[in-house]
């Protein structure tokens, strides 16, 4: 029973630095998404819906929140006797110790873990993509092709193709060339960062890669190009559904908004392919006596007394009467006071906005002092665990960092991170 046909390894160790203040204390996969989810819910739910019962989660950067969130995998039915969920941090050996050097090295360091399940296939997944995919179908396709590696690809608009890793394939879907961010793409099939490997082949490739001192030990940059160069059977598996890399502030905002604008494309209500998440114990949410609400996704524990339009509201959010929130994402436990006006904002967990704080793309008297190159398209980000003082006004493309509590204490203060408490509650 311990033997598992297919196991999944989720790469969740990256720092996610393009999300700025949102990943200051937490790993990117633990960032809240879509009212009641975290980003990692998507690959974990995919595993569950694909019948995969053993999942390793490779962590390294700020893993406490992520570890607490995942727990033993129970929320995704991944707390199995034979297998289940394993958090795999780097560790000290008799021979010494190293942190994970790259995505491929993190898997290399866990070869004994994978070996212990004697799998035929190993899925390598990213912890920072939003999509629903049946990996079992991909593994079956991989098997039918007799492939050594299969890379899931998705058609992207031609003009965006230069931002992706592009797969050039022959008529049999075999990858003949892999181009990382090509200036002139020959193709618009982009790698989704979802790989299925025959374990024997991957094991060999990882050991080889580790011996190459020039390698960055990265799947996309080294291992897969290496396998293609050596003529291994590398195939591209076409995926048609919704897929989004939420690595930047703008793409994170966009993907959230897609839930409101394209609920049919990213169907969270599909009973046959549910997305599971850790459920906290909250009362039902409440719409107040004088609130005005339109086009909103909201979850239990929230209380809305103000005006909320076209926004994503997470658990335990409070919007006071007289506040106006538009085109924004309020992460769990944020508190929006009366007189606040937000447009195209992302407010990090546990942050409190005092009365009359304003942040819109074209605030007439907003300060330029918080402009940040990580923000674009008029989006403003408030980091987590902050108190934003009355009177702060921001133009779009701003970011309020925890460090601002030191820089401009009259405008920003730190707030006790009550999510820690919440983490323990369920």
């Amino acid at each position: 029973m311990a033997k598992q046909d297919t196991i999944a390894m989720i790469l969740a160790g990256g720092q996610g630095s393009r999300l700025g203040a949102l990943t200051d204390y937490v790993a990117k996969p633990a960032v809240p998404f879509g009212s009641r989810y975290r980003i990692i819910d998507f690959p974990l739910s995919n595993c569950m819906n694909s019948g995969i019962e053993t999942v390793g989660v490779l962590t390294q950067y700020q893993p406490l929140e992520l570890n607490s969130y995942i727990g033993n995998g129970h929320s995704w039915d991944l707390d199995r006797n034979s297998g289940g969920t394993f958090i795999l941090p780097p560790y000290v050996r008799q021979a010494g110790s190293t942190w994970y050097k790259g995505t491929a090295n993190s898997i290399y360091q866990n070869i004994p873990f994978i070996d212990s399940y004697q799998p035929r296939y190993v899925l390598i997944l990213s912890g920072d993509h939003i999509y629903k995919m049946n990996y079992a179908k991909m593994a079956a396709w991989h098997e039918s092709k007799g492939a050594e590696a299969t890379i899931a690809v998705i058609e992207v608009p031609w003009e965006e193709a230069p931002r992706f890793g592009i797969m050039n394939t022959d008529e049999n879907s075999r990858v003949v060339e892999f181009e990382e961010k090509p200036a002139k793409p020959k193709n618009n099939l982009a790698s989704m960062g979802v790989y299925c490997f025959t374990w024997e082949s991957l094991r060999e490739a990882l050991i080889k890669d580790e011996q190459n001192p020039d390698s960055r030990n990265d799947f996309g940059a080294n291992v897969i190009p290496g396998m293609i160069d050596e003529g291994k059977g590398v195939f591209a598996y076409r995926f048609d559904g919704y897929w989004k890399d939420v690595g930047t502030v703008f793409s994170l905002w966009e993907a959230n908004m897609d839930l409101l604008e394209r609920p049919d494309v990213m169907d969270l209500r599909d009973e046959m392919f549910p997305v599971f998440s850790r459920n906290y114990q909250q009362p039902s949410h409440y719409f107040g006596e004088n609130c005005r609400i339109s086009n909103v996704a909201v979850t239990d524990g929230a209380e809305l007394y103000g005006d909320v339009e076209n926004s994503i509201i997470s658990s335990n959010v409070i919007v006071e009467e007289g506040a106006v929130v538009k085109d924004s994402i309020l992460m769990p436990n944020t508190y929006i006071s009366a007189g606040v006006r937000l447009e195209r904002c992302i407010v990090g967990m546990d942050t409190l906005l005092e009365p009359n704080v304003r942040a819109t793309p074209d605030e007439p008297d907003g300060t330029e002092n918080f402009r940040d190159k990580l923000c674009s398209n008029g989006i403003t980000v408030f980091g987590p665990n902050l108190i934003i003082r009355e009177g702060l006004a921001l133009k779009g493309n701003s970011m309020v960092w925890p460090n601002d509590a030191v820089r401009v204490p009259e405008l920003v203060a730190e707030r006790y991170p009550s999510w820690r408490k919440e983490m323990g509650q369920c």
Partner: protein
Amino acid sequence: MLTDAMGLILADNERIRLGKIDEPRSLAAVPFAGRHRIIDFTLSNMVNSGIRRVGIVALTRYKSLMDHTGTGSWWDLDRIRQGLFMIPPYVNMTTRRPDRTDSQSIIDYVESGHQEYVIISGSEFVASMSYLPLLDAHLANGADMTMLCVREKDKYSAPAVTIDVDESGRVTDVLVDHPLPKSDLRAVSLVVLKRDLLLEILQDRMARGYSDFSALNLLRLYDLLTVRTLIHDGLLFRITNIAQYFNASMALLNDEARHQLFSEEYPIYTKVKNRAPCLVTPESLTLRNVLASDGCMIQGNVENSVLSRGVVIGRGAQVRNSVLFQDVQISEGVTLDHVIIDKNVVIKMGVRLLGQDDYPIVIEKNAIV
């Protein structure tokens, strides 16, 4: 630190009927406050009081209760030696009738724990509180058993157990459903006593041929034993008839009452489900004073109402002063006022249902209206 008491919850009460909503399920399993059920409150109170062993006596219609409580994990009661115990009646092979009395199965449960005290709770009230003050009062007053009671401020309505106490606080009289009770003290079926005494009482009742068991049975021992009371001042909803149920549901729309019932100090746990977030659609609509839950899809107008999980409100619908259970579908153009609608009901296009303040209309589970 843990409390030296085990809990015993009586999921049924033969004297209480809540319209049609407790027909398909135990009283304890009746939905309340959107995503909760009545039992969530007393179960959470026990856990929040440091109790780690809780038995639930369910005589009948226990399927939805068992679905709800599951392994007890939602209340952190999935434990190796302690935890949650379902105490269903035993059924005989040939006759398929219960062949051991309820009391015997309760005795088995109580005997197998080692705590010194037992806190027994009925399921006809809703409150959020610690039970430690009751235990402390019991330790201090030296009585054989101590029972919670409330002073009824509102209009008297049966069923109700009225008690009288002497100047020392000892129970001196117990009146059941008396039309003109002389006291405003109503018993709440929450009682603490020593485990050994409970066993003695249960065994004595068994030997005398009584097979049922309720908090009222215990209270009626007031002339043989010393029974004292603790008067509860905080928020407590008695749910002994459908009007009380409806009024309690409406009371939750008040911020103060809701925040008292769902406080940070005493969290109320319930079974969680992976429903999508509630969606309120783009159209401009009236949405005021509404308690709603995950999985809802609100496209019509809702006022002063409680919506459980997965409720769908169609375009142009008008829902007022109503309580809608899980997965109720309100079609386009429906008008509802003072209605309680049970699980999975479909209200067809254009239907109008108007109840009265003190007489809400109740629509049965799975009905199509």
